[in-house]
């Protein structure tokens, strides 16, 4: 190569080659790089000695620490269950009224219920349990299937119109689409139902129309919703005289409900979450409807 060319800026020699104008310096590798490399390799070798690392045909080196992630996880899960069991066991055993009467236990219910509700129920009922069109608001006082702890617990267990053999089931027929009522009868009954929750009516319907609507209601709707239209929780038929509406309480929404029918769906949770968790959820949603303590 002859005389080594030196880079005037760094003073290092070049390797003597050039590629389309690019040269390379023959700078020695700085010592920190070697130190760094030795440290990282030393760490790796140490870790291989301590932990399961290298395959040996059908087995592998187990490592001096005898660490096993699966055993670790099992131990962690056991410890966590142990920690929770202090209050969990009480939830399991005690009845709803006793739990509701215990503020400390209800604090556990609220803390545990938040994530349980968020992961399982919020997709339909909303993260604040306030529902939406077609999905009941769980924080108000209106309960389609009853608002006692036992009723709510049962609803969570079997669901509504679900595949569970004991499922709660209900259906609002499609009175118009299936031609069970004439258009005029539907208009009459819609005006009547609207007037139940709006004492002044809509201002357009005549007394005669409301009377006609009342007749239609008595003949067709009272079986489920009751003669007083206050609903029946046994069949999941809503109270039509209050201000809580699952599918909207405007005349257009009521018309749509009467014409096309409704059939809500809630899955059964019996095979998906434990009994204790369902109990916690029951208490949690009932607690949401109360004024904050």
């Amino acid at each position, binding site marked *: 190569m002859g005389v080594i060319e030196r*880079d005037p*800026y*760094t003073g*290092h020699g*070049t*390797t003597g*080659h050039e*590629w*389309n*104008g*690019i*040269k*390379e*310096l*023959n*700078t*020695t*590798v700085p010592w920190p*790089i070697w130190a*760094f*490399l030795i440290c*990282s*390799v030393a*760490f*790796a070798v140490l*870790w*291989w000695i301590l*932990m*399961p*690392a*290298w*395959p040996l045909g059908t087995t*592998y*080196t187990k*490592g001096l620490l005898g*660490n*096993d*992630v699966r055993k670790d996880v099992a131990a962690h899960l056991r410890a*966590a269950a142990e*920690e*929770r069991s202090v*209050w969990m066991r009480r939830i399991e055993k005690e009845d709803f009224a006793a739990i509701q009467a215990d503020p400390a236990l209800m*604090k*556990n219910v609220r*803390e*545990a219920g*938040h*994530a*349980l*509700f*968020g*992961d399982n129920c*919020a*997709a339909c009922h909303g*993260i604040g349990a306030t529902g939406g069109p077609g999905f009941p608001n769980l924080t108000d006082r209106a309960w389609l299937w009853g608002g006692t702890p036992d009723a709510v617990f049962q609803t969570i267990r079997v669901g509504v119109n679900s595949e569970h053999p004991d499922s709660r089931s209900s259906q609002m027929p499609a009175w118009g689409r299936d031609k069970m009522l004439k258009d005029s009868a539907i208009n009459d009954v819609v005006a009547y139902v609207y007037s139940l929750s709006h004492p002044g009516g809509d201002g357009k319907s005549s007394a005669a129309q409301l009377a006609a609507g009342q007749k239609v209601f008595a003949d067709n709707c009272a079986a489920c919703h009751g003669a007083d239209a206050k609903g029946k929780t046994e069949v999941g038929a809503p109270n039509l005289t209050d201000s809580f509406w699952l599918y909207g309480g405007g005349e257009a929404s009521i018309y749509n409900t009467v014409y096309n029918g409704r059939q809500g769906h809630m899955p059964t949770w019996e095979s998906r979450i434990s009994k204790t968790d369902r109990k916690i959820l029951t208490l949690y949603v009932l607690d949401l409807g109360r004024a904050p303590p």
Partner: protein
Amino acid sequence: MVSTLTMNERHIALVISSFVAVLGLVLAASGRHDLLEPHGFLILLAGLAGVFVILHGYFDPEPGPERLSSYFDEPIKVGIVLAMIWALIAMFVGDWVAWLLAYPDFRFDAAWSSFGRLRPIHTTGIIFGFGGNALIATSFHVMQRTSRARLPDQLTPWFVLAGYNLFCVLAVTGYLMGITQSKEYAEPEWYADFWLVIVWVAYFVLYLRTLARRREPHIYVSNWYYLAFILVVAMLHIVNNLALPISIGSAKSYTIFAGVQDAMVQWWYGHNAVAFFLTAGFLGMLYYYLPKRAGRPIYSYRMSIIGFWGITFFYVWVGSHHLHYTALPQWVQTLGMTFSVMLLVPSWIAAANALLTLNGAWHKVRDDATLRFMMVAAVFYGLATFEGSFLAIRPVNSLSHYTDWTIAHVHAGTLGWNSMIIFGAIYYLVPQLWKRERMYSPALVEVHFWLAVAGTFVYVFAMWNSGITQGLMWRTYNDSGMLAYSFVDSLVAMHPYYIARAFGGLLFFIGTAVGAYNIWKTMQPIPAAERTQADLPVLGELSRPILQAGE
């Protein structure tokens, strides 16, 4: 295009195009009533387009023998244009899906526009469309210059470029129709994979033939990296895509691996796609364009050697760090983690070698946005490789895995490192290839630089915050010993970061659009007198005769 081919090459090109057209027709016929049918017609169309283009230029005068004393740059130009087109499409789709995450209804309620179909268009479009075309184009440039040899023939480079882009088009149009193997970064189905093998082998052989014709006694570092990229990607692609199609008339295939073996093979592929596609190939780019632009010698040849062998040796072991805390045996996880830690050293050697090369040229970094693109790329390369090794440590991974931290890490690499070095290389190449004094507007290069840097920072910081918040929320327990937050709570917490991320992506996309405009304007014809000289191979010192293939 056709005028660069000899008559003999035109005949071969006609045969290949006709063969592709027939193949497409066969696939369309055998795959009737299957999603394979439209793809068969697409391949038929591509073959017919090839036939048409060749026949259209068939009677153009042949290139004279004087071509052999110049470099063959036409495919490089086309490759750069294709890379920029893919960049615009894929970055647009990327930002779209980013907005979708913040506002999920932003998609016209159509099947093709669902997140699951758009997202692979973004990843494939960026990695293979943008990155792949840039790699092919720059490798054609670097291999000729550092070997002081012209590409061995005119047809193979065109075949590689066109064939590769046919693969990319098959991939992204397939996603829109719902064709996917559901393997990340290896989504295209069997027939597209098969085609890519043919193209890739042609690319590999082309590279070797050029190197064999070199007039330099030694092979430059860039070529080591480009070769590693081509060779290992071939190996990864073939093994991970071993699959059996349901029938010759169906687009669907099933992988031959099962369960955790399938997962391991997939992430051995997935991580080495990062290693050899997005790292080795791009280091090849860095090792040529950065010293060229800085006008400085490489800081240390010895560091180049340790860096190269360290990277190629360590990387192939680390794929299992994508499967920490899964059904994968613990010992495989230990190996993945320890090799990831050791990998940091050669990665930083490569980054340090690039940055130390700039010693004596920092004033140029200050003044020249093109060189600054390359400098920032080297910095982000160092940052992203540090983060990668850090995230591969199991306890760290238990916090970061499945969170947006991974997204931050990937984009520090792809936006900060890959895109920046591509733009640096392109701003260096475009004036040279089109024989201009400089880019149409150096001010716009500056604008692009700052938009790209700002976009990357906004993006990466948003996703760091989002990811760590997410990871912590998922593991926070309350006094009752229960998880404090539901998954939905963490989504609500992500929302502002998703908006910030989409905004950062938008800045980056606008920067790319500015760059594309600037490149477009630079390409516009100018009078011959204003053109600069082409760089010609310095002949002489010929150690062996240089043969033109087919002569």
